[in-house]
Structures are given as structure tokens and as C-alpha cells.
């Protein structure tokens, strides 16, 4: 396992996140859903084909799982990222509970911001731990600090 192989994972993941961002911004999967219905002449209100957009989202998840499985050995070493993303997942769960129980909207929105920030921190943690593990092309000051602390 070297930096080159794992770098491919991050490149693919980066493209995936850009796609997800565009999807959210331009409602791509809903547009694909409508486009397929128009192209194939399907009834947009058909109870079966109406869930095509859900299928597209599920396909995103499947691709992400396949990618994670392919690089599972490298990903298993990023313990800092596991911890931070685990907390982000917990915050999202609380956010869903807040929505379900009709807690104040400000708290729900705030939790969304905190969870989103925590996800970004998770990727920062991954980047920094990669350097500590010697799997990054360029070291970071955290790697130097770690070496200095003798950990």
C-alpha cells in the first residue's frame, strides 16, 4: 500500500463529492428521473417508476460502498476520521430526531451546520493522519508535531 494507490481513492471521492454537491444544487437526480420518464414515455405518477429518483440515490450509496470496500485496508487505518465522522453521524441522528419531534427549527438547522462542519473536520483529520502514517505525498505540521512528541 502506498500513497499513489490511496491517492486514487481520494481523487475518485473528490469527483463523487463534487457530483453530490452539483446534484444538491441543481436537483440532478430529480431532473434525471423526469428526463427518463419523458424519454421513455412513462407516466410520471406511476407508483413504480415514480421511485426512480430514490433508485438513483441508492445507486450513489452503492458506488460509495463499493469504493470504500475496495480501499477498506487503507481506510481502516484512518482512525481519527472514523471517530470524527462517527460523531458527525451522531449529530445527524440527533438532527433527524429534532425534526421528528418538532424541536425548534433553529436547533435543527444549527445541528445541520455543526454536523456538516464535523464532516469537513473528518476529512481534515484523514488528511492529517495520512501524513502522520506516511501515506501522504507531502507532510503537514501535525505530522511534524507528532514526530516531535514522539508518538
Amino acid at each position, binding site marked *: 500500500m502506498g500513497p499513489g494507490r490511496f491517492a486514487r481513492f481520494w481523487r475518485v471521492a473528490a469527483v463523487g463529492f463534487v457530483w453530490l454537491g452539483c446534484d444538491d444544487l441543481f436537483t440532478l437526480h430529480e431532473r434525471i428521473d423526469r428526463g427518463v420518464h419523458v424519454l421513455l414515455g412513462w407516466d410520471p405518477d406511476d407508483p413504480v417508476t415514480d421511485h426512480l429518483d430514490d433508485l438513483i440515490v441508492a445507486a450513489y450509496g452503492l458506488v460509495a460502498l463499493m469504493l470504500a470496500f475496495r480501499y477498506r485496508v487503507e481506510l481502516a487505518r484512518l482512525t*481519527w476520521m472514523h*471517530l*470524527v465522522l462517527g*460523531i458527525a453521524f451522531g449529530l445527524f441522528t440527533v438532527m433527524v430526531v429534532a425534526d421528528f419531534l418538532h424541536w*425548534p*427549527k*433553529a*436547533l435543527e*438547522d*444549527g*445541528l*445541520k*451546520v*455543526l454536523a456538516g*462542519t*464535523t464532516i469537513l*473536520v473528518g476529512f*481534515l*483529520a484523514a488528511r*492529517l493522519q495520512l501524513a502522520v502514517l506516511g501515506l501522504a505525498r507531502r507532510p503537514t505540521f*501535525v505530522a511534524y*508535531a*507528532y514526530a516531535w512528541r514522539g508518538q
Partner: protein
Amino acid sequence: MTFVERMIGAAKLDTRVYEEVEADQSATPQALAVVVLASVAGGLGVGAGVSGIVAATVAGLVGWAIWAWLIYFIGTRWLPEPGTQADIGQLLRTMGFATSPGILRVVGLVPILGPIAFIVTAVWTLVTVVVAVRQALDYSSTGRAIGVCLIGWLVQVAILLLIGAIVRR
């Protein structure tokens, strides 16, 4: 402006946000939510457990209320400017949103970065609080706002130390 836009604007020292939340009486629960979230982020950042996060949140809320009241008192009674017109709600709202940068304390989850995150967010929050106080108290002088914040902070620390000493007994 949405709640999230207000939080980002407050962190970016956007004076329009502070003027808006100062005038919006319905924004007090939003300000409370910002204080809670910043406290939760701080608790997570230091690796505290659930009880630690709850304690940090309670301390954050108490500190917010005490500091806002002190600044209201000092700013409107001792050091007002001719145009100063404020109530405690305005101070609570603007100062609550001023704690928005505290959410970045969650960066402390990453080893080594904790102390850096805390120093950066502490300084950042100090600056946002000064802007919040300046806008809420309708000051034209930033120096006066800094003075009021400093006096308020010193009195707050003294009160908290006193409470701490009483609790320890």
C-alpha cells in the same frame, strides 16, 4: 436572512446581521441555539463525554446570560454614548450570534489541533462580541465597546470564581 446565513454573517463580522438580530425579537431562541451549539462543539472538541457536554452547555448558557447582563448594565448605565438605546434582549441576541465561531471548536477532535482551534475561536469570538456589543449599544466608538466587553468579562470571571469557591465549600 435565514438562521444559517445569520450565523455565517455574524462570524464574518457583518454589521447588518447584528442590526437585524438586534431588531428581531423572535431571534432570541436562535441566539440561544447558537450558544448551545458552540458549547456542544467545545465539549466535543475537548473530548468530553455526555455529562461533560451537558456541563459545558450549561456553563455556556450561564456565561452568556451573565456577560450579556453585565454588558447591558455597564454599557447603558456607566459608559453610554448619547445615542445608546438598548435592552437586555438585544444584548442577548447579538452576543448569542457572536458565539458562532465557537462551532469551529469541533476541530479539536483532531489530535494536535485542539489548542490551536481553541485559541483561534477564542480570539475570533472576542472580536465578534466586540462588534455585537458596538451594534447593540449603538456605539460609534469600537474602543468603548472593547472597554465595556473587558470590564464585563473581568466582572464575570470574578463572579464565576466566587461561585466556584462557594460550590467547592
